[in-house]
């Protein structure tokens, strides 16, 4: 197991009551593992299994690996413009 820091924004931040948190993920974790960990937290189930995740400020795929040194963020459906 490893610990990673995750940023939360907008509705996801409201849902989990914080804009940054740390979660435990398996060794050699992927984006999918991160989402599983977040969703297992209290109220985490409100975040969709298919939520967008950014790794180092770029959108990532579910199978992309993550590391403790990565800048990770859960991205609610964007609504700019």
């Amino acid at each position, binding site marked *: 197991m490893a610990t990673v820091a995750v940023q939360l924004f907008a509705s996801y931040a409201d849902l989990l009551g914080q804009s940054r948190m740390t979660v435990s993920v398996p060794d050699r974790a992927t984006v999918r593992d991160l989402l599983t960990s977040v969703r297992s937290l209290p109220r985490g189930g409100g975040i969709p299994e*298919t939520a*967008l*995740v*950014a790794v180092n400020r770029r*959108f990532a*795929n579910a199978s992309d690996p993550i590391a403790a040194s990565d800048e990770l*963020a859960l991205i*609610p459906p964007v609504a*700019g*413009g």
Partner: protein
Amino acid sequence: MIRAALVDRVIQPADLLAEVATPRSGATALFIGTVRETNDGRAVTAIDYASYVAMAEGELERIAREAGEKFGVDFLVVEHRVGMLQLMETSVAIAASHAHRGPAMDCTRWVIEEIKTRVPIWKREHYADGSRDWVDPAPRSEKVAP
């Protein structure tokens, strides 16, 4: 000159037009997004634009660069505002100029569509009844990558 920025001040569309003006261009297209008084039938009084700033800036710049290549446009300025905006205030402005009208208009349109798909910006609408809600364009949450 291609430039994109996230800003927390008033956007002046006339400044963007001046920035893309050049004797090489015969056509300039501008798109502006503004805060509208209703959405989904609810009376809106203001919109708070939130952003994952570091990523949004990079994504805006990538979109502008990609648009320049895709449409052969050399003069393109994109500004998206964040923070609390009142009715009629400009949230986004895109100005593109080109020798011919097709690329200028196509480019502007493509940029606003891309912004709405891939730039991490969210809006919290404030309603006349005192409530407020994050705007959730539901279908977009279906996928993991853009």
